């Protein structure tokens, strides 16, 4: 069945896209898992793990910014590349094609809001510096 596996396979640890690089495509995971990490102040912070059917790199489709994170294979992962230009043209012809991407982005905004709220609460609850 390997001959029928669409997309491209990345080996465990291989980088699919790198933070700071320009991108003109998004990826859809067909099989396996990938991790999303952000490098900040010389440290690597793991944001999330993605699985089958999930999109990654979709921000590059809608904005001309560099990649905001690095994505690496966790075990072998098979992904299918979706070209930015072709996708935008199709969305222009059929806007409903963007529903799932918007759904993914919406879900991520929700998760981020929860994480921001949690961080702010932790910051608020943290005891201040001891007074002299």
């Amino acid at each position, binding site marked *: 069945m390997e001959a029928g596996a669409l997309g*491209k396979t990345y080996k465990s640890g291989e980088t699919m896209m790198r933070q700071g690089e320009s991108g003109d495509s998004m990826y859809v995971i067909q099989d396996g898992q990938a991790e999303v990490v952000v490098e900040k102040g010389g440290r690597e912070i793991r944001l999330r793990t993605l699985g089958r059917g999930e999109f990654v790199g979709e921000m590059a489709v809608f904005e001309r910014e560099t990649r905001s994170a690095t994505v690496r294979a966790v075990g072998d992962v098979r992904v299918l590349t979706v070209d930015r230009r072709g996708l935008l043209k199709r969305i222009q012809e059929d806007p409903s094609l963007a529903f799932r991407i918007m759904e993914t982005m919406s879900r991520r905004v929700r998760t981020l809001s929860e994480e921001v709220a949690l961080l702010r609460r932790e910051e608020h609850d943290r005891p201040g510096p001891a007074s002299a």
Partner: protein
Amino acid sequence: MRTANSKAPLSSHAPGARAETPDHGLRLNDGARVAVVGGGPAGSFFGYFLLELAERAGVRLKVDVYEPRDFSAAAPAGCNMCGGIVSESLVQALVTEGISIPPTVVQRGIDSYVLHTDVGSVRIETPLREMRIAAVFRGPGPRDVRRVKWGSFDGFLQNRVREKGAEVKRGRVQEIDRESGRPRVRTKDGSLETYDLVAVAVGVNSAALASLQNVVPEYRPPRTTKTFIGEYYLGEAGVAAVLGSSMHVFLLSIPRLEFAAIIPKGDYATVCLLGREIDNELVREFLESPAVRECLPPESYAGQSSCHCRPSINVGGAVRPFSDRIVFIGDCGYTRLYKDGIGAAYRTAKAAATTALFHGVSAADFEKHYWPACRAIGDDNRIGALTFAVTRRVQGAGFLLRAMLRMTSVEQRRAGEHRRMSLVLWDLFTGSASYRNIFLRTLRPAFVARFVWNLTVSILKKDRF
């Protein structure tokens, strides 16, 4: 729920029966019933997207898909007589829609094309070197299939529409008529059901089309032509060794033959021929031509096909493929000329589904929102016909063929080279771009200049490929 033979008109309070006033038009409301006649790709895509969009919009629909064939049964019962290519652009659109075709259905991923001509051949690879074209069998495989190893593509799509909540009915539809303006579907086994919308997706090879079209008197089926599709058993290792993961396309100066392709599948090679009055003689002439013998030696398939057919394909659009509450989609409506029939089924099915859900199901709604999608395909096909006419000219002119092969092979050899000809040929053979887009690219000054340069060099160097 209304019974099959109920004659009573729906009350204005019944589900799906909103009053049909000019203000509201004909709409699919909560509880509306929809029939899809034909469960090939167009029918399954229509059912799938209608239910998907309805779910997002919070509208409950009851969808019945009528398909007498069992796609899990060995051919010819489940066969749909098709080359079986899911184009690069469709594979990408489908994954974006959440539909990934699994390796259990894809007989072989295609990552390159080899163009064979009378003066030589050239390989064209996708820039990403990624498998993004799927070679599939619409049914479980050819007549002599020894063991069903791969699933059918039509069966895969049918399972997706079933998972979305549609009911697949095995009855063969015999007639569609109307009762109080609503279409009624009568099957051969005597069932009779009334619907708020019927989508007809029976293709152009079904005898049913002649009897079903009467319900829309203005509808005229598309013009068709015959093709040849043959399956040749090589075994999985044989296919890999002989054809690899490339689709092989042929531009040969054989009279009556316009275009030919050999597609690698799991255990088989599918041979597709397009042309005028394709008969056994033309098939034999093609298979015995030097370019084909080199690509597919007769000893690799024991000199005979496992099965073959001569299905019709749509080469002109249907006239007025809609009326109040009835729409014709896929091949019995509009499709792309020679290429990407499954992609056209997706486009027309989705355009019809979005029209039905978001705008309404009257003839005026389909004319305003569905018809433009059909017309766009038709307009593009006219440019496609012109492109194929030019291709036919090139086919018969060795010096032009040599210049084309030279330009392509130089682009393929040199990293960073602008792949002008490669992309034109890739998009033309894969059906990945519109004919208009391809044609316009060939008119760009840079393309013309490169071609003239390669033509000159090719003549001076007396190229041999």
